[in-house]
């Protein structure tokens, strides 16, 4: 078994309004998908993330710690959430990713963990 990061990417201005029917449908889909992951024993961890503007970057060098406001990479696309899953191989991970993408209605990046 190997572990894979399944990350969801949004435009950096993306913010979910959970009161809308669209968002509620998505939440329900993701909830059902998470249950499937757990039932299959593929679940390691998963969560959605607050907007990238809420991020802080911390650097420690030679005992000095400095902080900067905002996400590390100033890019148009930011990670909006992720799953860490366990799968037999890449094809199994890609299959989960396809269902993840359908559930969260956005593109999902698959990246293998070390080891």
């Amino acid at each position, binding site marked *: 078994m190997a572990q894979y990061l399944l990350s969801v990417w949004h435009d950096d201005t993306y913010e979910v309004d959970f009161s809308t029917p669209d968002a509620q449908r998505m939440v329900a889909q993701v909830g059902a998908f998470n249950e499937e992951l757990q039932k299959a024993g593929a679940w390691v961890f998963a969560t959605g993330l607050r907007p990238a503007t809420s991020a802080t970057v911390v650097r420690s060098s030679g005992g000095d710690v400095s902080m900067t406001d905002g996400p590390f990479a100033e890019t148009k696309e930011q990670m909006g959430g992720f799953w860490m899953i366990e799968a037999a*191989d*890449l094809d199994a991970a890609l299959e989960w990713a396809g269902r993840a993408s359908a559930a969260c209605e956005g593109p999902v990046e*698959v990246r293998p963990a070390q080891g």
Partner: protein
Amino acid sequence: MTEELGEVFRREAGRCITTVVRVLGDIDLAEEAVAEAFAIAVERWPRTGFPPNPGGWITTTARNRAIDRLRRTSVGDERHLAAQRLHINDMESDHDPELDGLDDLVDVVADDQLRLMFLCAHPALNVDAQTALILRLLGGLETGEIARAFVVPEATMAQRIVRAKRKLHDNHAPYRIPRPAELPDRLHVVLVAIYLIYTEGHTATSGATLSRFDLSTEAIRLGRTLVELMPDEAEAAGLLALMLLTESRRSARVAFDGTMVRLGEQNRRLWKSDLISEGQELVRASLRRNRPSSFQIQAAIAAVHSDATSGEVTDWSQIVALYDQLYELRPNAVVALNRAVAVAELRGPSEGLMAISQIDVVALDNYQPFHATRADLLARCGRREEAITAYDRAIELTSNAVEREFLIRQKAAAVEEPQA
């Protein structure tokens, strides 16, 4: 002997690597081991003569060498232990590589080739990486040869191959034949990669000569292998037919002075009748299954062309009908453009231009054949100024010297004698 050895290498390298990959679970190790086995063969066979089954000898020797090396250098790695386990039975029996393991190789080799094909053309790789891996691992081509064929620096190609192998390795890409449910999609990716190798050889995107024989031949060889391995897959037969029928016209495509000859003006006596009949038979067989898909329809179009004794007597209504069918399956601008060419032959150049005007032009603005086709039809309609502008754009877009020369002559003809 040296030439024969080279031929054995070309023929067997892919098959040997496929089996050794399965045994070792590692592409790089397999490649090294097979290279080592070939080095031994080069040294030994001139003295002893060829063994009865050269491919089997290479495979078994490579596997044994690799496992010996693993035993010397590593302990504890799961993969290596697995490889040793697989090997234990062989070590207990006769250790003559010409004999041991040959029987069980016969059955698994076919599946191994398929596994490796699906691994090389894994949808997680881009198509450049897929074609490079296929040629390297299944074709047994050197990185330098592949780089020259695709006109990229050797270092670029080497990096492309290393990156692709590394991605498959890091991602734990499985070495298996896709399940029936996944097979149509996965097979299509394999076929597209092989066809890309073929078309790259058929019309070099750049360089001085129109055809690069090796790539096309290699693609047809891979296509044949695939049809042998998956005789029930009509789409694989369709691809092979398409390549054979296109290949049958190769020597008619280029005139003695090296310039390009269009299909309608080709000397059809130069077409290879054996390739045509093989291709047509495949088309007939695959269409009988009545599950037409894009390669089959394209092959059927090529088959209609090869039925005609001249450009004029071609059954253009049949070809337009096939393009209509193809467009339903693959509604893209390139298919629409080819359909417009057939419409022009059937109903005249102005009807062809009308069909072109309905295509999404933005999608084709950087596509040389779009401008070349438009230019030709405009010239045939006597719209000289527009034709010249379109020729200029086509010439600007082509990087193949032979094609450029052809377009320049077409343009000159349009300038000199405007057709009514």
